[in-house]
């Protein structure tokens, strides 16, 4: 029955505009980086662009592959944390806003299968976006003719982006939990924004390794220098993931559905 639950979760995405909207949203990232790179490489034209040129210069960017890949990791990590929260809030929340949760919860299918199937759909959706954005980024970088690309550097860039994407994913079951608890889109999105703000705050303290939403900013160097994560951070992430899944399953199992 799990395979049926999974197949129907994918079927529900058919003709779904939100999937395209997220693709368009994340694909703006490499385009934005490319714009900055172009401005840095063409200071004369940048000047004609006024503020954009000033901002690009102030950011201290270099129009090189290391710089490009570093910004890409930032987009996948931080942008991804928000976008992925939106995806999960949509996948779980639509059942409540569209009134279909009650149709799912009294079927000959264990309720936890729906939770796991939805998390798998979110993972597939997220990985598709990440692969698409990586392909787009490399195509744009090559088109710009940025200097300094080696196979090792490309592999490192992909590895970092995938690691940031993976860590972001480990946080989403908590978002799913908040969604089924709040039965809609707004509570999880509010929660995600609050956690990102707190993550930034904790990132500037000595507790950054221990607060789940600080770990991505810490890894990509958004709060201090990029660093290799300690084992304790992976334990915290794993526990966050398990707690999120357990909370979501318990919520759909034991709470009243008076939708």
């Amino acid at each position, binding site marked *: *029955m799990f395979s049926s639950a999974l197949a129907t979760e994918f*079927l529900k995405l058919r*003709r779904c505009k939100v999937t395209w909207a997220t693709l368009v949203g994340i694909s703006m990232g490499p385009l934005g980086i490319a714009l900055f790179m172009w401005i840095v490489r063409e200071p004369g034209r940048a000047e004609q662009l006024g503020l954009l040129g000033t901002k690009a210069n102030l950011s201290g960017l270099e129009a090189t592959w290391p710089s490009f890949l570093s910004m890409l990791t930032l987009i996948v990590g931080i942008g991804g944390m928000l976008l992925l929260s939106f995806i999960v809030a949509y996948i779980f929340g639509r059942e409540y806003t569209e009134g279909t949760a009650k149709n799912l919860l*009294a079927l000959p299918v264990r309720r936890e299968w729906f939770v796991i199937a939805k998390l798998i759909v979110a993972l597939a959706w997220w990985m598709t976006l990440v692969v698409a954005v990586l392909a787009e980024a490399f195509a744009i970088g090559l088109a710009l003719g940025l200097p300094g690309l080696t196979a090792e550097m490309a592999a490192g860039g992909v590895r970092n982006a995938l690691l940031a994407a993976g860590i972001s994913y480990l946080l989403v079951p908590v978002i799913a939990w908040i969604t089924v608890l709040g039965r809609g889109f707004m509570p999880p999105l509010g929660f995600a924004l609050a956690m990102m703000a707190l993550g930034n705050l904790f990132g500037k303290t000595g507790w950054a390794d221990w607060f789940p939403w600080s770990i991505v900013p810490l890894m990509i160097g958004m709060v201090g220098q990029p660093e290799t994560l300690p084992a304790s951070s992976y334990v915290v992430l794993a526990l966050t993931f398990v707690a999120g899944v357990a909370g979501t399953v318990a919520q759909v199992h034991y709470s*009243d*559905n008076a939708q």
Partner: protein
Amino acid sequence: MTTDSAITTRGLSKRYADVLAVDGLDLHVRRGEIYGFLGRNGAGKTTTIRMLLGLIRPTGGEVEVLGRRIVPGETEVFGRIGYLVESASAYPNLTVRENLEVQRRLTCSPAAAVPETIKLLRLEPYADRRAGRLSLGNKQRLSLARALLHYPELLLLDEPANALDPAGIVEVRELLRSLADERGVTVFMSSHILAEVAHLADRIGIVHDGRLIEESSRDDLATKARTFSTKVFSEQERADAMLTMELERYFLWRTGDEFQGGDA
């Protein structure tokens, strides 16, 4: 708990903070019968149906459906139950056919069940239309189709005539009657409209303030109603009621190209 029972509840209760929505409800619905669960808005009908489906946990009492106790984690029995709770709902981006395909896969029904059910509910003209673009009445038909798709032994229907036009109400009424008579399907339907259940139900339970205050066969209830009507209403009021009924029948006859059961 007896073996001829499709639904049995004992002392079933549900409390929300200060509100006792269902109060010690004892129900016994026999297999193969159509049971009308009648009550005003807020009487506890929907809460009762949600408890029968395990969507809401009772604060007291117990529920047994088709011989299985409804407890968290129970799944087997839901393959034998079709249901429609309160409002019609479907995935708006999916077509009628795709919405039913979701249900078919989740109930492990044969592929033929989808076209058969579309035909049964007269949804053929809308089969490839997105559910989000259906009228309310057709959304209700889709919800009924979802409930019927896997050939359930028991149908739990909460206000099934909601949003249906008069012809649609008669069609659904005839469909439910034939399911009970020809396939032995048990139907438990709630309504706040007496006429709706009076035309269909074998037995009627009246629920008020969460309690079952009366339970009778349709014929007994009709007799009581006639006696009551004679005592309480004037000739003019009874004539008005009769006229309303006749107007409805005339309307059904005039729209006979959609409604096949008219005999006016």
